[in-house]
């Protein structure tokens, strides 16, 4: 079997990896924001469930999260195909990690901003939505970019629940051609070709944003 035949499949796999990344990052950060609000909430009925979910998401391996969704949830009557199962598992992991990043960003907004908003007569909700949240999210941007790169790399675990993403395609190509070294080297370089420049971009963003507002 010729290795060349399998190269386009690696490309197809990369597209699936990127789809998983986009879904898990967009949904994950949205849920992460909700978790962050829940963890900072004064209401214990919101706070404790949020803290528990975040700590579970950060405390257990992403691989175990994927197994729980794919192999475990069917026993609770929830059956998912591989792709949705991977999307759900990776979204949950991304949400748990991003919530702490977003929370740190929100906490980094100086108290004077709230005081100034209060002095101007803005309501609590308006202050949070229009003053605190935009500044908090802004300072969380570099860390969130870093997490997005991590999320992209974590999609490689989806092969273990038989999603045909890049790693899954590489596994099949390797099993058929027996040319593991070449297949995995190419696969690794494909991941790195996206992850390394993306990391540089997040470092650049960090430098730019650390200059402050004006």
């Amino acid at each position, binding site marked *: 079997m010729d290795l060349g035949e399998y190269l386009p499949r690696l490309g197809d796999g990369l597209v699936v990896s990127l789809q998983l990344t986009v879904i898990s990052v967009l949904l994950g950060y949205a849920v992460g924001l909700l978790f962050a609000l829940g963890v900072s909430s004064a209401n214990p009925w919101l706070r404790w469930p949020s803290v528990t979910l975040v700590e579970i998401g950060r405390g257990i391996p992403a691989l175990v999260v994927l197994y*729980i969704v794919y192999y475990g949830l069917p026993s609770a009557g929830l059956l998912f195909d591989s792709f949705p199962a991977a999307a759900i598992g990776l979204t949950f992991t991304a949400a748990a990690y991003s919530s702490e990043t977003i929370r740190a960003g929100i906490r980094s907004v100086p108290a004077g901003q709230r005081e100034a908003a209060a002095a101007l007569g803005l309501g609590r909700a308006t202050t949070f939505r229009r003053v605190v949240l935009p500044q908090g999210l802004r300072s969380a941007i570099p860390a969130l970019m870093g997490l997005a790169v991590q999320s992209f790399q974590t999609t490689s675990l989806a092969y273990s629940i038989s999603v045909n993403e890049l790693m899954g395609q590489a596994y099949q190509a390797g099993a058929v051609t027996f040319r593991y070294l070449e297949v995995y080297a190419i696969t690794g370089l494909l991941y790195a070709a996206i992850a390394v420049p993306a990391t540089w971009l997040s470092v650049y963003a960090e430098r730019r944003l650390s200059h402050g507002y004006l």
Partner: protein
Amino acid sequence: MPASLTAVLLGLPLTLVVTAAAFALGAVGGIPLMLGLRSRFTPVRLLVRLAVDLLRGVPTIVWLFLLYFGLAVGDVRLNSLGAAILGLGLVASAYLAEIYRGGFAVVPKGQTEAAQALGLSRTTTFVRLLAPQALRTVLPTVTTFLLMLLKDSSLASTVGVLEMTAQATAFSRQNVSTAGLTPFFVAAGVYIAISVPLAIAARVLDARLSGSH
């Protein structure tokens, strides 16, 4: 529950072995890489930077597969455990090199200048003055990384190391009708149960070190 706990705990020693060995490999291997990242010679610095970025840019699981399936010298091949430890250790050395570098970057320049003024050699300055201060700064980050590594040791299951995640999967497959979610939640619980005392120990160590300052 008791049956799945027994099954999962069978994998605990290998989880700990993989984590500890990869961490040791990374903690030691990170030192030369960190020195390379700080090198005065631009070609060395760029080359090591490329190596570190490549080690971190390729997902760990790809490194494991590359080492386990791809690396064969004649008939000699790494076994599962060897490939898992080497792969996780290599990636760890890149992450730790970056963490160490960050620690040295925050030591004030005045320290180096003062040492120079006192006539200390470059080596003495580095080993006796900069390294202890940098070590203290990076300790919390290194701990966080160790906890990440504990979770990443679950990847060893993909190349056939029978650690906790592999044991949980196997138990779940053997008892499809009865086990269900339980073994995975048990494994999850054990990961968290190891992380918490580690995190507390690190906090105590950190408090003691910064107290002595």
